[in-house]
């Protein structure tokens, strides 16, 4: 019985973590769908905006919500700049070159952030400590509640935006058929830029909220978050936005359940197990859980 509570507790933590992986995945899938580019700079872009939040919190003494907004705005602007000055000039190059371009962007951002904030791990103060409420042996921390609420509001708001607004529909239209989008008078370059901005901003939210739960912020801390977001996106099919959410939640829950198993080496190798499981799922469903099996039109 006690074990069951333990597993439930870890599952709850897993859902919270999974929400953040899901957001990371959502940002990457959005960029991929509209521009066909897998953004390997997502980790470094997120790291940069999380550092902005850090500066807002510690140097400017902003409240946490203000720091989060600062990070979102910074990420959005960085996304626009990366699209406009790194990817658009090379947009006719093969996709593989564009992937390398995003790796180049990652290196540049990493160097710039290193120059500004240094190479050590900085502590990230977090106001939401302690539990919100308990049911039996289960505790729901304020952090978990915030994470779930933020992820839910953000993804629902984003889906509503894509479904009901003219710009949102134009984003989906551009993702499906660029030629037709252009012929309808949609400025495809501007839509790509907007997707990079929004994709980066969604990633920044995940980054700022997850940082306090790991040791602190440094130059490379977001790489493992991005990898799990990437895995979540792959698991969901990489072209499906709901798939990204499902994939993120699954990875979060499974990862945490491995921690709950009371055998030392299982906990240590939990990330290995998570990725092994993903490989297993992908051998059964090569297009991911919610991926499209058909080829998309150009």
């Amino acid at each position, binding site marked *: 019985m006690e074990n069951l509570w333990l597993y439930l507790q870890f599952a709850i933590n897993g859902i919270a973590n999974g929400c953040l992986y899901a957001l990371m995945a959502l940002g990457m899938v959005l960029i991929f769908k509209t521009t066909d580019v897998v953004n390997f700079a997502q980790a470094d872009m997120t790291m940069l905006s999380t550092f902005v939040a850090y500066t807002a919190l510690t140097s400017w003494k902003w409240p946490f919500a203000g720091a989060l907004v600062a990070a979102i705005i910074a990420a959005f602007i960085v996304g626009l700049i990366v699209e406009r000055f790194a990817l658009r000039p090379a947009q006719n190059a093969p996709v593989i070159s564009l992937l390398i371009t995003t790796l180049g962007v990652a290196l540049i951002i990493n160097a710039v952030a290193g120059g500004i904030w240094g190479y050590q791990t900085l502590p990230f103060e977090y106001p939401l400590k302690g539990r919100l409420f308990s049911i039996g042996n289960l505790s729901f921390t304020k952090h978990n509640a915030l994470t779930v609420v933020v992820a839910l509001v953000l993804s629902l708001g984003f889906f509503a935006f894509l479904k009901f607004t*003219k710009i949102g*529909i*134009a984003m*989906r*239209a551009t993702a*499906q*058929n660029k*030629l*037709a*989008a*252009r*012929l*309808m*008078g*949609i*400025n495809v370059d501007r839509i790509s830029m907007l997707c990079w901005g929004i994709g980066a901003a969604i990633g920044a939210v995940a980054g700022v909220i997850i940082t306090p739960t790991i040791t602190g912020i440094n130059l490379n801390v977001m790489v493992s978050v991005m990898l799990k977001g990437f895995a979540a996106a792959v698991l969901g099919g990489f072209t499906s936005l709901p798939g990204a959410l499902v994939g993120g939640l699954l990875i979060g829950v499974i990862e945490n359940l491995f921690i709950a198993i009371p055998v030392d080496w299982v906990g240590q190798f939990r990330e290995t197990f998570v990725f092994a499981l993903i490989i297993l799922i992908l051998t059964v469903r090569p297009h991911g859980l919610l991926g499209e099996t058909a080829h998309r*039109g150009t």
Partner: protein
Amino acid sequence: MLRLEDVDISYGPIPALKEISLAIPQGQVVALLGPNGAGKTTLLRTISGILRPQKGTISFEGRRIERARTDKIVSAGIVQVPEGRQLFADLSVLENLRMGGFLRKDCDLQKDFDQVFSYFPVLRDRLSQAAGTLSGGEMQMLAIGRALVARPRLLLLDEPSLGLAPVIVQKLFTVIKDLNQRQGLTVLLAEQNAHLSLGISHYAYVLETGKLALSGTPGELRRNEAVQQLYLGTKTVVSHNKDRQIAASIRPLANVEEVRGEDRSDEDTH
């Protein structure tokens, strides 16, 4: 209304169109005839600003547009129904129509939707259906409807009859004729189906391997021997020499048939 002068276009080193000059007067339907690969789609994409000409000028109502961005060309009033419909397959019928009005400043598209439904009532019953699940004829109707929501003054149609049943093609051409006669819409119609196109057009150009070979009124073209033989399928006596030319120009198709034949025999041996 639209005037092309001496336009050259090439894909990299490969020339696609050479020295194209044509004019589309306001209020007319102008047909652009020619076989597959003659350059009809290339020409229409150049007018829409998807491709850039290497040489020559394109002007719309006196303004040069050969270097203009596609969205500027659309807002000037040139709207294209591309070859193969190019719908947003996962978007609903209604969302496709809304995208037709993307550049419209007024947000009241309902009147335009109603006009589309008056031509194509079947679309009204399919509003929430994904465009990719429509039949071929419905897709073409939606593609035309989507373009109409943009309120074009010059409508470019690229092979609207492609892959459709004759009865549907008849209906579409009736709508195109009606749009021209009742709404005064100017139309450039690129088609392989010369017979039907000549039936609704005021003037026609014939494009062959990237060059304008002929032009004239439908009556003049119908009387032209080569047009009769190549595009209208009527039997006339032609000289031996012309016969050879015609045979040469249809050889690519014959090759396709041969390849298909080989494929089939391959399958048999497995």
